[in-house]
């Protein structure tokens, strides 16, 4: 059954919520300032709203209902306590501009979070304000540029990015007014060091890397990379999207990175919320500290206080948000770290890596081709379906859709771009062996089906609320809002 649009549920003039104030006051504003026609908002009862959105929610996959082995996304369990504690009234109703005296509880959490993140990454200072990974990247590259400019080195405008990098890396470089130079990858998954040597120079602002990379392998020559880039006068940016794989094992600071963002919504398990919010906190080594975005929390004795731009931080790249970033996400991450504690932090990398390597080996045994069969998996790994695509015309996309019918969310498909027909698979540490085994079973069944009955796989999904959607039509006949009176496209 399809669920109607909320606009199709109402009746003109229906007004039945207890939340609408009974008071209807006279307005003294000039008539010309006032709205003449009502906005297109639903006119439904509270009950119908509850029903509609409850039913819509049931049309989603989620961590709370399905295994979600989405590579690069670290879809681990989001502890419910993190949600309920971040939403305590004192935090929830706190105005962002409340004075410090009325904010000590909140500020203490943020201060400790800054400190804990520094100690988890080997950086010296953190700013919590970036609102997602991509904004952390923007902050990072902006800091790198500010650093060079501060030294009077205006010519450094190139950012090196591996071809396996996430799209946000090159996009960010552009937003920061830099030019992107792409770095090739070797067949073993490591960077081509000689290519790197050739690309660096006095124009190099820096390099953006994830390690382990989005190929699911650890860049073994990271020390060489750092030496080369630093040697050429550039700085190293760490894209922390894969921090989960090395949490408590390797400090990005020790690898030579000058600046890092962490996706708290990945490694620190704050929920993805169907697309956000996230948090892309940034950490830096000593060199970049003056440039950190503001505000930041500091302490004086027992008192926690804000450090904003201006005299305190004249070199700061400035603000990235109207207030201080996604506070609620930060509180959730704080609770998460306190729940796991030191031992728990160390276990994150251990068990996410164990799960990934187990899954990789078992899938290999089932007949799947690995992109990097000779490498250890980090917390994720890549299966390539090049052979299946060629022999049976069953693609990575077909596998992805077929998995949905088994009640599994699909792995990441077609990313990283350099591996053909790839599935990037990241089980995370919170999944049990039984779940992995069921997933392996489903993959094996689909593989068998792809051989004997590829058409069936290409028909998938059949158990979802809709069958495969026509993306071309969506783009060609752009329909991005409901217009009453439009013939419904169902007709």
């Amino acid at each position, binding site marked *: 059954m399809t669920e109607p649009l909320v606009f199709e549920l109402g009746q003109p003039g229906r007004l039945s919520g207890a939340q609408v104030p009974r008071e209807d006051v006279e307005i003294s504003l000039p008539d010309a300032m006032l709205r003449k026609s009502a906005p297109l908002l639903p006119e439904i009862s509270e009950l119908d709203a509850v029903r509609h959105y409850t039913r819509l929610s049931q049309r989603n996959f989620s*961590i709370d209902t399905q295994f979600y082995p989405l590579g690069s996304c670290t879809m681990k369990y989001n502890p419910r306590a993190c949600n309920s504690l971040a939403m305590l009234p004192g935090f929830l109703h706190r105005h962002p501009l409340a004075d410090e005296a009325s904010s000590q509880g909140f500020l203490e959490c943020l201060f400790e979070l800054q400190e804990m993140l520094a100690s988890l990454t080997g950086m010296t200072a953190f700013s919590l304000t970036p609102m997602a990974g991509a904004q952390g990247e923007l902050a990072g590259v902006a800091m790198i540029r500010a650093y060079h400019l501060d030294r009077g080195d205006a010519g450094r405008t190139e950012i090196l990015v591996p071809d396996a990098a996430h799209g946000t890396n090159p996009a960010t470089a552009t937003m920061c007014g830099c030019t992107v130079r792409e770095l090739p990858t070797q067949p073993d998954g490591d960077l081509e060091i000689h290519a790197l040597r050739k690309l660096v120079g006095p124009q190099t602002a820096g390099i953006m890397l994830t390690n382990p990379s989005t190929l699911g392998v650890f860049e073994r020559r990271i020390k060489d990379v750092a030496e080369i880039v630093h040697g050429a006068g550039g700085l190293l940016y760490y894209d922390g999207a894969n921090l989960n794989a090395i949490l408590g094992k390797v400090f990005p600071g020790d690898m030579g990175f000058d600046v890092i963002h962490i996706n708290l919504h990945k490694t620190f398990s704050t929920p993805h919320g169907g697309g956000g*919010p996230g948090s892309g906190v940034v950490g830096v080594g000593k060199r970049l500290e003056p440039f950190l975005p503001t505000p930041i929390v500091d302490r004086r004795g027992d008192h926690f206080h804000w450090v904003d731009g201006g005299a305190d931080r004249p070199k700061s790249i400035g603000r990235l948000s109207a207030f201080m970033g996604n506070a609620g996400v930060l509180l959730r991450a704080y609770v998460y770290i306190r729940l796991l504690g030191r031992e728990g932090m160390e276990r994150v990398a251990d068990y996410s890596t164990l799960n990934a390597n187990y899954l990789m080996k078992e899938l290999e045994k089932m007949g799947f081709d690995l992109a990097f069969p000779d490498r250890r998996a980090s917390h994720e790994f890549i299966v390539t379906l090049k052979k299946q695509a060629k022999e049976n015309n069953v693609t990575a996309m077909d596998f992805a859709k077929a998995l949905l019918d088994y009640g599994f969310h699909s792995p990441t498909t077609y990313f990283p771009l350099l591996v053909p027909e790839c599935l990037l698979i990241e089980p995370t540490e919170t999944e049990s062996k039984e779940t992995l085994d069921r997933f392996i079973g489903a993959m094996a069944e689909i593989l068998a089906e792809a051989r004997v009955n590829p058409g069936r796989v290409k028909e998938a999904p059949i158990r979802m609320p809709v069958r495969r959607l026509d993306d071309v039509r*969506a783009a060609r006949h752009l329909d991005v809002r409901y217009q009453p009176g439009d013939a419904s496209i169902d007709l």
Partner: protein
Amino acid sequence: MPFIPHTQDDTDSMLRAIGVNDIDELFDEIPDSLRCTELHGIPEALSEGGVSRLMRQRAKQDEVELNFLGAGAYEHHIPAAVWELTTRGEFYSSYTPYQAEASQGTLQVIYEYQTMMASLTGLEVSNASLYDGASALAEAILMAVRVNRGSHSRRILLPRSLHPHYRTVVRTITSSQGIETVDLPYEPNSGRTDLDALDRHADGDITALIIPQPNFFGVLEDVDALSDWALDHGALGIAVVNPMALGLLRPPGNWGRKGVPIACGEGQPLGVPLSSGGAYFGFLTCREGLVRQLPGRLVGRTLDADGRTGFTLTLQAREQHIRRSRATSNICTNQGLMVTAATIFMSLLGPEGLRRIAALCHARTELLVEAVAAVDGVEIVFPVPRFHEVAIRLPVPVNGVLERMRESGVLGGVCLGPWYSDLDNTLLVCATETKTEEDIETYAGMLRAAIEASGEGL
């Protein structure tokens, strides 16, 4: 092990399957010299009960009785249903809806949201959210630069009556792309953008003009004049609006002769709690013709293989995961959960509910204006039509007054002095529908007492 399900048996058999002796062996590609030894700085784990107690104590410290702060974040009553539904696991713990067939819930919510925001702003297309109001404005400016092919200056007129934080965020985000922001002063008597000053740019090449409504002082700008000016001078008008106010006020799409082509703003008033400043969400809407330059995600309605209606992410070629260095923005993760809350919020209120709340906010603030104007020595800085905020000048330094009020659990306003040297001893005060008539009397009474006490203290 909190959240990790592995029994020793599980671990052993998995290691065996992999063919290693222990977990540590799985890290053997990492150079030894890089392996860190210990996590200083992370305390021992607490049980959920322990953390709960800690967080309850911290949160309690920050509770206040009454809050008259606004300045970009507004206290509204949020119907209980909004967050009871929004935090349902299926919304809360799902990823970006890349796999459309398994994400029809989220996708339809966003499609509904897009419809509501487009209509609320009087425009045609809304994206699926940006981070917050300030960064949405920065993105709107970058978009305007791409869109306004007729302009080559990359020069943006930024009124001083715009939220000062928005102004700095715009600079942080856009400056490295060679975009120049030029300040527009406000009239000292009205707090409105100075049209004469604007006219001084009539001959310059202006890429975009930013038009806040209401502006940072709560004052209603002459949006018709401003948008017509933009239209007449080859600049794109970009509206920065409070969506709650749009329940009552004329939408950007209807400003001036032709409306402005882009609107953006902070979505927080639509069902998102103050929550210390975030997560909120930025919205961005525009005319249909500009859709290919829109940053952020967009959901489209289409058909499935059986011809049934369904929803999917569309025009993804604008985005970083496809277009990479030539994307319209680097944004990936946005503020999906807040969009869900806002959609439910708007569904519960409907057009009439939204209008009434907006009207009530306005009326409450007018009441507040009356009450504080009656306090000796207090001056209403901008005596012109406003939405739900007002700047008031006190006869004594504000800090002492605020401190006295806070001791009674009342947050009395935001000091404007640090941002505006000409607005010393001035507070920006906000009364939404959450404030009763008695609250407003309480406020005025406390203000009077605090001013008197400060006066004595002098």
